[in-house]
């Protein structure tokens, strides 16, 4: 394992921030292994995205604007990745730990007969060894896992865990040829984007999350959104709130929702059930607002203010807004 290959997930050239976190980390890994940092970006909008990627410290960016990538579900993407990985030899493939990233990683495990470390938040490198650090069992354990040096390795990367830092050599952008002789069977008939241009939950530096204590959908708009906006963050929710239909499921945080680790997490009217906790407990600072001083969230928040969310949140929003202006 010498070279590093970053899979760039995107839609029409729009990519999550974790791509740049991976590009930055790829440089460090490649330097430690004595190899090169590559990236693969395929599908409509790739050439345009490659221009942005060029400002990150990569050595080579392999590009193809192939329309089949969006027409068929993932199969063409995997063939490109397989070809790119085999062209550069036993390497470390970095993939974002997203829904799509999990699928890509799993398929590469079989294609490349590769080991996998999932949801890495750090690397330890010593003497050509690659060791990924990952929280497991919902954060109850931290594991160090080594990838065998002679084989391919795949690592999925938790968003927000690594820094993104532009700069560096200015990679060469090169066309990658479409793998020949492949036929694809899973056809995408309709593709709907629902995220309304708001900051993605996993990438937000501040998450303001609401739970059953908010009592309905309105307070998410009238209480939480203004506070999140003032702090430059995004709104999230507990499963109770998502199940009640107050917010869409893509805002749900926890075991069966998203895992977030922002520098600041504010839980409003959330009790702190274990299934919620595992999705946010690695946040930098955790602040809770809850009527009940005995709720489980008291056990893992840095500050719990016992009181009524409806009284506290608007006042807090005002203070934050005032401090900004």
């Amino acid at each position, binding site marked *: 394992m010498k070279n590093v290959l970053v899979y760039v997930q995107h839609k029409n050239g729009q990519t999550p921030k974790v791509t740049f976190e991976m590009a930055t980390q790829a440089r460090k890994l490649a330097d430690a292994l004595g190899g090169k940092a590559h990236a693969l970006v395929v599908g409509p909008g790739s050439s345009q995205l490659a221009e942005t990627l060029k400002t990150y410290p990569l050595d080579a960016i392999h590009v193809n604007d192939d329309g089949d990538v969006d027409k068929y579900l993932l199969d063409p993407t995997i063939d490109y990745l397989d070809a790119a990985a085999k062209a550069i030899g036993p390497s470390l493939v970095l993939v974002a730990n997203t829904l799509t990233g999990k699928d890509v990683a799993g398929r590469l495990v079989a294609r490349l007969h590769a080991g996998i470390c999932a949801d890495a938040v750090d690397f330890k490198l010593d003497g050509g060894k690659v060791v990924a650090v990952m929280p497991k069992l919902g954060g*109850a354990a931290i594991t160090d896992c080594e990838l065998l040096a002679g084989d391919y390795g795949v690592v999925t990367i938790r968003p927000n865990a690594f820094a993104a830092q532009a700069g560096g050599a200015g990679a060469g952008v090169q066309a990658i040829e479409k793998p020949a002789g492949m036929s694809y*069977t899973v056809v995408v008939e309709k593709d709907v*984007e629902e995220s309304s241009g708001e900051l993605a939950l996993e990438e937000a530096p501040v998450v303001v999350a609401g739970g059953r204590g908010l009592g309905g959908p309105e307070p998410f708009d009238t209480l939480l959104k203004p506070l999140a906006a003032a702090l430059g963050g995004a709104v999230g929710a507990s499963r109770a709130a998502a199940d009640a239909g107050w917010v869409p499921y893509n805002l749900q945080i926890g075991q069966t929702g998203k895992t977030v680790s922002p520098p600041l997490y504010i839980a409003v009217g959330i009790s702190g059930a274990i299934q919620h906790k595992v999705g946010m407990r690695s946040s930098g600072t955790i*602040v809770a607002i809850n009527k009940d001083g005995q709720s489980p969230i008291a056990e893992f928040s840095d500050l719990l203010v016992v*009181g009524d969310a409806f009284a506290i949140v608007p006042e807090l929003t005002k203070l934050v807004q005032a*401090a900004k202006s």
Partner: protein
Amino acid sequence: MKIVVTVKLVPDPNAEKRIDNGTKRLVRTGVETVLNPYDEYALEAALQIKEKAGGDTTVTVFSMAPESLKETLRKALAMGADDAVLLSDAGLEGSDVWASSYAISHALKKIGFDLLIVGGLSDDGSTGATPGALAEYLQTPLITNARKAEIADGKLKIERETDTGYQDVIAPLPCVLTTALTFGEPRYASLKGIMGAKKKTIAPMSVADLGLDHAVGQSGSKTQLLSFAPPPVRGKGQVIEAADGAAGAKAIFDFLKERKLV
């Protein structure tokens, strides 16, 4: 139609877990082994598809787990699966994701299926990589995160969740599917189901049945677990009773300012 559902047996996700500092292992006392929650959703999807399809559609559950957990698997039969296959072998111990997927795919090839439904994520492994690896080894199309499924003319029509919205996709059978939690809440086992499950078969399978070309278990794995430790403790923080909204807000604001978060 033959539907197969993979079910992993995992330490109860609802239990508060603790790593023993000395042994570096999960403290198992007081932690029950249960069906992986995502796999209960996968099984629910299979049962719904079976009910809709009718005829001679069957649902088989498959698990790779120690023989001693056989009775835990019976819950899947009580929920409504027709039969089960349990792959157990000392030689599988310590298998990583690559080795398990490799072994499981060979078992599934032997069992055969028109539709294979895999859970999206295991609670203890949490890689989410198994479905993709299985689909590749089985050389079968893969559709993940399905929230609605329809089968017509031997084709599978799926509505699936994506990172940014949803998609409608179509694939031929046989196919590998994973389900999103929005597919439907898993049903409870009825008393009749529980009684009936006692008579259903759990067929044993071992590594010798699989005809593998590569070693599995710890020695065949491509990753090595170097350490497994409790995370740095996050001490219980401050608790402040707010006299009113303004006081509560000020307490938070001051705290955030002190930590340079505003």
